[in-house]
């Protein structure tokens, strides 16, 4: 058995990136992602990599762009508002097919739209991976780099302040990526006996401005990702009358509440936890909607992922949102919204209305 380390989620994600071969990092301090910057600036020199204290998020993401263009595995981590600052670059990295991992240790879960709808301009998608624990964070960083290289584009890694700041036992596993193609498109400072390479979002190498061809290729790629890369975890779906959908660290509270409600009150409730937020695990949500009485969504925002659930359900069953935002002194909008009791009460009320048929209790 591999050695286990007791680590903060942010550090686990950073170390997993190093072990996945990340050798360039650029960051700018912002709560709650600062710990990744701290870890990387200390750790990167030990493995011969580069960690830059970028003077702004825009400079940071563009440094990552340059490093990735040389074939180096590159990452940037930040939070919410600062991810907004990077969106022009992320959008054009998607168009330029430049692989990188962008970590958003978000504040609450209100960046769902920002992450899954692109956030920037143009006709592009980014794969969005959402872990729910430090261990899963460590596991999925390798996947994020793999998918970035496989499909050649930026992959968003969507953590949250709880993931970043919770200390858990973590072991680091080797990720099999033997099927990745060689990076024969990068600038490597060795233009000897080969044609020049142009890494550009404006068109294909050597055919600058051939935008139509480029778009076709990109769109085809996104369709393929949508069909083949949906990831999720699910439980108790066989007998469930109500299925709850939740993602990220808060989904652990939902799972715990469901286990309690099943064991103590005999309520037939299942859960689906999307691991990829894009592509959304539409297939399992659609299948589930054909045999349950209702689907509930818990998310710590004003109702964002619920739209993807409704798109998958297409009216086959009612969909309710029981998440929400609340105030607390940290300003992260968590407060009482994230407690097992609060979530249990919400799910129980929803069950009584949507499954048992009691008077409307859910707004």
């Amino acid at each position: 058995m591999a050695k286990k380390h007791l680590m903060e989620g942010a550090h686990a994600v950073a170390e997993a990136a190093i072990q996945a071969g990340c050798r360039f990092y650029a960051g700018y301090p912002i709560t709650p992602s600062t710990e990744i910057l701290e870890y990387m600036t200390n750790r990167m020199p030990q493995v011969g990599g580069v960690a830059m204290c970028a003077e702004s998020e825009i400079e940071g993401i563009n440094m990552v762009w340059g490093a990735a263009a040389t074939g180096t595995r590159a990452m940037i981590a930040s939070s919410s508002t600062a991810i907004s600052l990077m969106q022009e670059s992320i959008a054009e990295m998607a168009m330029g097919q430049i692989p990188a991992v962008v970590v958003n240790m978000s504040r609450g879960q209100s960046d769902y739209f920002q992450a899954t709808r692109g956030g920037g301009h143009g006709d592009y998608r980014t794969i969005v991976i959402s872990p729910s624990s430090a261990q899963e964070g460590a596991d999925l960083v390798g996947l994020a780099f793999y998918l970035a290289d496989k499909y050649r584009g930026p992959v968003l890694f969507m953590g949250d302040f709880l993931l970043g700041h919770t200390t858990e036992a973590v072991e680091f596993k080797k990720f099999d990526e033997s099927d990745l193609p060689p990076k024969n498109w990068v600038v490597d400072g060795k233009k000897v006996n080969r044609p020049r390479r142009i890494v550009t979002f404006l068109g294909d190498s050597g055919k600058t401005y051939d935008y139509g061809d480029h778009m076709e290729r990109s769109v085809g790629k996104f369709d393929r990702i949508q069909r083949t890369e949906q990831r999720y975890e699910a439980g108790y779906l066989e007998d469930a009358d109500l299925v709850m959908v939740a993602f990220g660290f808060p989904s652990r509270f939902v799972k715990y509440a469901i286990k309690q409600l099943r064991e103590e009150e005999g309520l037939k409730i299942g859960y689906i936890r999307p691991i990829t937020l894009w592509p959304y695990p539409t297939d399992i949500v659609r299948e589930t909607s054909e045999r349950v009485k209702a689907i509930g969504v818990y998310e710590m925002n004003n109702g964002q992922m619920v739209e993807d659930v409704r798109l998958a359900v297409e009216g086959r069953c009612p969909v309710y949102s029981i998440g929400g935002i609340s105030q607390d002194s940290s300003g992260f909008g968590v407060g009482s919204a994230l407690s097992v009791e609060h979530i249990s009460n919400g799910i129980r009320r929803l069950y009584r209305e949507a499954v048992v048929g009691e008077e409307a209790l859910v707004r």
Partner: protein
Amino acid sequence: MSVEVKDGMFKVFSKPSTMVEKSHHMCPGCGEPIATRLIAQAIEELDIQTRAICTAGIGCYTGMPSTLDIDVVQALHGRAPSVATGVKRTLPESVVFCLQGDGDMVSEGLQEVVHAAARGENFTIVLLNNAGFGETGGHLTATSVPGQRTKSSMMGRNKEMHGMPIRMAELIAPLEGVAYAARGAVHTPAAIGKTKRYLKKAFQSQLDNKGFSFVEILTMCPSGWFIEPEEGPQWLQDKMVPYYPLEEFKT
């Protein structure tokens, strides 16, 4: 460098081997192709073609690196110095240079270039300064000269409304990380010859790992200045050179 061909005839010029045979889309009288050719010559004469990587900004000149037979990374408007940082830091043996215009560098991306210079990044930045946004059809940038009429300053640049233009080479030169800073131009044969020497010095400074090197090149933009192509060099001499002195600021 002249080579005797035969019967006392000397060949003094030929297409640099670092250029590909490809047409470009620049306007008649534009100075940017001359500047690009000087870069091609400097790369050829220093024998760094296999190691050279251009990070290009966004402007008219964006298509020009595709006339160079070297590797290129296209950057977003204003962001080339950061992209170059990522390239050079991961490939220290390469010879990296940014090609940026005044709209790209001085208007949109000023903090990128200043930070890269202050960090002493060991690469070269070439600023093509034509005192305006050429690609959009002639609009005011942070280097448009006093009194200059553009489509977004029809009454001319005035101090009260627009402030005064930024002298980039002078701004960059005093920063500790900067090893070389100069300003040349491409409006006369003498200036062209001198500018090529500046470019070679800048690349040499990078080859010697001395830090950040910067060459500003004043280029003609008759379309953006709303004059005839043949009037470009004189306009540059009369309107730009008095405000932007042609010299080396740090060696």
